[in-house]
């Protein structure tokens, strides 16, 4: 049982939660994630450790409401409520060391996981260039936090409602063209990571991405999280979630993410109808 200490709405369908999990807070490192299960009938879903506080014994999660579980979390779970299960920290930590100049790209909800990585890279003496982007202004969050941990920060929106109009790969290309960059991290929707990888490859700069495969146990037991990396099946939960972006079979990853499309749609519609029904009564 894990108490939700704080909840904040960051934007449309975007929530930030501070959850009690002292053991995890004590061990968390950038790049790692937790798996949560809301209640007895819940699904186990992975969420990245966006921040943590050892002294308070809490971890911070940012969730985008995309399906049943994340909607339920966003709509029904408030401060003072408890989440049945939180397990972690899972996955291998990011390789934090001195590289020189690094670029940290966060797309959409990927801004949350890129934040602790940027912070740690800065702490290790790197010059950190941040790029964050979202579809529109309302979906941007944590710009203040990112500013603090980046030496410079570029912001894009698809519709131009804030910052530069366009997608994150545009400032990325500009930076790679004009500066010497030793390493890139890119976290966001699979399609964004794919294009960030292609851009990095043009300039032969190493790029690390974090794969958001579908997971069940998160301990290397089920094999559901497998992705093809350099022609081999790898388990994102124990071998990753970070991989060399140039070695990932992106099309396969994208296909596998759509495995349960119909079931997810059915579950979400059923859930939203229940919520509407409850509101009417």
């Amino acid at each position, binding site marked *: 049982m894990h108490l939700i200490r704080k909840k904040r709405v960051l934007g449309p369908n975007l929530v930030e939660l501070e959850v009690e999990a002292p053991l995890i807070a004590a061990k968390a490192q950038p790049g790692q994630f937790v798996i949560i299960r809301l209640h007895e009938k819940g699904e186990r879903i992975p969420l990245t450790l966006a921040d943590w506080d050892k002294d308070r014994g809490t971890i911070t999660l940012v969730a985008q409401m995309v399906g049943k579980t994340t909607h339920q979390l966003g709509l029904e779970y408030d401060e003072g409520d408890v989440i049945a*299960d939180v397990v972690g920290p*899972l996955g291998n930590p990011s390789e934090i060391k001195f590289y020189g100049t690094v670029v940290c790209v966060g797309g959409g909800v990927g801004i949350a996981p890129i934040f602790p990585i940027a912070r740690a890279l800065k702490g290790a003496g790197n010059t950190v260039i941040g790029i964050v982007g979202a579809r529109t202004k309302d979906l941007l969050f944590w710009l203040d936090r990112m500013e603090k941990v980046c030496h410079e920060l570029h912001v894009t929106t698809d519709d131009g409602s804030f910052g530069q109009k366009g997608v994150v790969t545009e400032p990325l290309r500009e930076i790679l063209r004009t500066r010497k960059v030793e390493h890139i991290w890119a976290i966001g929707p699979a399609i964004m990571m794919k294009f960030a990888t292609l851009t990095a490859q043009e300039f032969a700069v190493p790029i690390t991405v974090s794969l958001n495969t579908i997971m069940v146990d998160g301990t290397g037991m089920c094999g559901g999280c497998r*992705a093809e990396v350099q022609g081999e099946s790898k388990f994102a939960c124990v071998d990753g979630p970070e991989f060399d972006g140039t070695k990932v079979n992106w099309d396969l990853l994208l296909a596998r993410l759509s495995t349960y499309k119909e079931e997810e749609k059915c579950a979400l519609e059923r859930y939203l109808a229940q919520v509407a029904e409850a509101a009417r009564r």
Partner: protein
Amino acid sequence: MIRPTQVPMREQDPKARVHNFEEVPFGYTPEEAVSEAERCLQCKRAPCIQGCPVNINIPKFIREIREGNFRAAIRTIKETNNLPAICGRVCPQETQCQAVCTLGKKYEPVAIGRLERFVADWEYEHGVELPEVGKPTGFRVAVVGSGPAGLTCAADLRRFGHAVTIFEALHEPGGVLMYGIPEFRLPKKIVRAEIENLLRMGVELRCNVVVGRTVTIDELFAQGYHAVFVGSGAGLPKFLGIPGENLIGIYSANEFLTRVNLMRAYLFPEYDTPIKIGKVVAVVGGGNVAMDAARTALRLGAERVVVLYRRTEAEMPARREEIHHAKEEGVEFEFLVNPVRFLDSSGRVSGVECIRMELGDPDESGRRRPIPIPGSNFVIPVDMVIVAIGNDPHPLVPRTTPGLATTKHGTVVADEDGRTSREGVFAGGDIVTGAATVISAMGAGKRAARAIHQYLLTKYGHAPVQGA
């Protein structure tokens, strides 16, 4: 006169049971049990005892059943076996205790497993006696994993009076008993009851703790644990390494069974975890896991389930009873075939290309090696595949415990009593042997508990040294 055949066990009708998850065999009535018990010859040298990995005094408990003293019978079994209701159901008796039964030389062997199950179930109905917990020693032992190895080790450590904490990575304890073996073979209420008993004995259980991530073994020692038992089991499902194995619709048996058993995906959307069931399902493999996956797929509504196995039925490692049950339920078998590639229809699996095999000379395991017949390729159209060709050991504990020696297969190196290369760290079950059996994991847990007890007494004398 001895009846040559076993008293049959009544079962659910195959036609009915493929539509439910209820247990298949019903178990003996007291009359049936006594009647079967009467077949035992009460052999002086009782080879059956040697055939049982935990050396249950089989003639004694059977005699007690014959005398109608079921309480005495369960006590006899529990002297050496902590989980008889589970072993009575899932033990490969036909290759263990029953394989060497004297009666089996001429007739069918005594149905030892069924009798064991009977008295264990009888005890549940009439009140379970908890083993006595020893006087507190002040020692604390951490147990990693709550499968049969961990559960047994924890119970025995309590009997010696040590304080025990089990750390389990998943949200529910039980290991494979919970997430792997299906309800229709091992009802989950039995596993839960066993865990309940452990808690009543004072074992502390902490779920959602992944040792190696949430806490390492070195940190457990730093927190004051005097010894650690690692029973983290087999994880990491093996795949075939052939083209197309990551297409949608291809599951490892672990994922498929976990979604169904642990996450109750068969109750989607009431439960949140989904599962995709194909119309035609291929199951690759020939062990218990393959049989469980095949029979589960049928119960979830697959129209056809075909097991693909690269040797013949005689070499199948699955229990005979399970193969028989699977056939009765309509599972089909293709022997002497091996998948070479999966076919793709816009990202989903649409078929499996196989090659026919023939048996050549025996390999290291003594089984005849299957050899592909060139040019014999053929395609089976399927829309779901479950790969059940085994698991490698769980990687996290070995990877995060410096100085813990492993084999090239990734299993932890341990002696007969579970001692590893690290002082104070013991291990047993599938993490040491590779995928094996419930009873062998239990046996390993028991031996390790004794070894841990000896280790603690030898190292510290009778009272633990604070901060040591």
